[in-house]
């Protein structure tokens, strides 16, 4: 029934990468990673029935757990590694340490009661949850959000991206044992959080983009302080760029690490900077402009090396891009206007029946909410599509084969995964 050899008919991919740039280290295609290929490698275990078989008693292999309490793991999750010497021959990602059953909880909460909990789904970058939840509900209900609210939301999302990238940047340096930049960048993130706190009343969980608009306008003098903060951040980021991206040892570690071959990008559902570093100019902000992104000027950042260094570079450029976007937003947004539109009484709000999928470009790529409403006061189903889902589980399991134990942290971080959005 399924015709597997269809590649010749497949339409050309947009933004196809420059050929010959993928590294020799990358496992080219899942299809070619066949039994023979693996069995050729004496380090690799024999494969029986499509599964690797390890004789742990042989002394050749060692089972090694990284996480959940492990400084190299991006949060509360764990990797079950089977290593041969220093080389990883099998990796299983274990998640669920943070599973709170959000999707279930939302099914027994009214729509307004879902609003405070969605932001907890991705802790370091909660705003995309807020926005997408609000946007799906608004779209199903047919609520028009005032223009100023749209600008404020865009600003919020870009600030969130910037803050999240800052934390990631520190993590990237830290994954290779360099703590200095991490100390700076987390502080920069903190400065942005200060602005968030001023604007939204919350530091980590902003709970600001409520269906219908936002919960408050700018406080007095906010834009000036935000500009100042962005200037400070930019200066520090330049320092980080100079000392990290021109760092001999960092380059040695990151270049050639965890190459994602362009062919597997779609097979593994890879999105965001991970895909852009593989040469795909895909960005939801451009492809499906939401909020006011169609009124902002920016270019999609791409790279072709597709290794940890390329991904870090893409993210670095996107941080500058975010700063630029924040400045653009501050310059162009309407000076005043309503920021909230009337909702039905939220205490007994029955959202119209229907279903919709909305997505936005978070730091890790396509973040999406699927809302299925049956016309009652509670959602029938909300599905949260976090990009970490595929990146942290199947992609990580795929990429780590053949890596050094020492590289797992760097590889993991370079994929930029947040476990809470995997398990929700």
């Amino acid at each position, binding site marked *: 029934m*399924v015709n597997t050899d269809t590649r010749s008919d*497949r339409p050309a991919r947009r933004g196809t990468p420059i050929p010959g740039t993928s590294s020799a280290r990358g496992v080219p295609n899942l299809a070619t990673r066949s039994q023979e290929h693996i069995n050729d490698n004496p380090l690799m275990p024999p494969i029986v029935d499509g599964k690797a078989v390890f004789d742990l008693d042989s002394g050749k292999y060692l089972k090694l757990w990284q996480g959940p309490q492990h400084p190299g793991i991006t949060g509360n999750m764990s990797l079950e590694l089977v290593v041969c010497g220093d080389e990883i021959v099998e990796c299983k990602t274990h998640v669920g340490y943070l599973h709170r059953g959000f999707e279930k909880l939302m099914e027994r909460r009214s729509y307004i009661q879902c609003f405070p909990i969605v932001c907890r789904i991705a802790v370091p970058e909660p705003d995309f949850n807020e926005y997408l939840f609000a946007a799906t509900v608004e779209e199903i209900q047919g609520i028009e959000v005032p223009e100023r609210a749209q600008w404020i939301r865009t600003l919020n999302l870009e600030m969130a991206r910037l803050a999240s990238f800052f934390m990631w940047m520190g993590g990237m340096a830290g994954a290779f044992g360099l703590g200095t930049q991490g100390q700076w960048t987390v502080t920069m993130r903190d400065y942005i959080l200060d602005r968030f706190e001023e604007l939204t009343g919350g530091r980590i969980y902003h709970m600001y983009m409520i269906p219908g608009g936002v919960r408050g306008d700018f406080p007095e003098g906010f834009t000036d302080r935000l500009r100042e903060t962005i200037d400070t951040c930019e200066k520090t980021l330049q320092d980080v760029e100079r000392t990290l991206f021109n760092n001999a040892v960092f380059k040695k570690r990151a270049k050639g690490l965890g190459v994602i071959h362009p062919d597997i990008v779609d097979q593994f*559902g890879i999105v965001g900077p991970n895909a852009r570093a593989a040469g795909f100019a895909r960005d939801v902000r451009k492809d499906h402009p939401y909020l006011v992104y169609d009124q902002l000027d920016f270019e999609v950042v791409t790279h072709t090396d597709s290794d940890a260094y390329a991904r870090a570079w893409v993210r670095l450029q996107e941080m500058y891009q975010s700063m630029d976007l924040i400045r653009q937003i501050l310059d162009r947004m309407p000076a005043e206007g309503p920021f909230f539109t009337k909702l039905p009484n939220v205490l007994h709000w029955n959202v119209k029946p229907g279903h919709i999928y909305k997505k936005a470009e978070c730091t890790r790529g396509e973040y999406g909410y699927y809302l299925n409403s049956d016309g009652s006061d509670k959602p029938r189903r909300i599905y949260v599509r976090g990009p970490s889902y595929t990146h942290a*589980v199947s992609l990580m399991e795929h990429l780590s084969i053949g890596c050094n134990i020492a590289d797992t942290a760097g590889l993991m971080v370079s994929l930029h995964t947040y476990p809470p959005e995997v398990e929700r």
Partner: protein
Amino acid sequence: MSDQHTQTQISSAEVHEVFADLHTRYGVRGLEEKRADQAFVRTDRDEAVAVLTHLRDRHGYTHLAFLTAVDQIEEGRFELLYMLHNYELRHDLGVIVEIPREGDGCSMDTIHRMWPAAATYQRELREMFGIDFPGSPRLHEDFALEGWHDLPPMRKEFDTREYSERTYYARPGRTKTDTRQHMKDTIYPSEAETW
């Protein structure tokens, strides 16, 4: 704006073309156009994998954004939703497949050979909904839960609050007073209107 992004959005006609193709080949039905860039269709369980393959290989829907299920308990079925995306046309297409909730019928063909990442989704669906995907790797390993032996928690009949109260006791000592009852008790304790 860069010129690579000045491509036109998919037109409704193109969506209809894809739909017509799927309809004649596989009897796909129920086209719902939500937005210019998003539509949903429904297909039968037996045709689903063929439809997905066809979409991926002939129509450029190469990206599986997610796979999930919606519990339509009243109708005794799950709706599996395969959300596909076409980067060429910038179009989302949700393929909905209905399967029975109970018994042997609560299973679906695996698509991990088409999208290796789908294995994870299928593991989660088995754990959270109890949907079987024969042949999917590591299907019966724990995913988010560990040592779970109650109903699959995302099924509608599973009551999370009841489970929580039964399992993880809340801190005692809280009292609450019903406003209406309290006002009745203090303002009109013995009047005869509440029969």
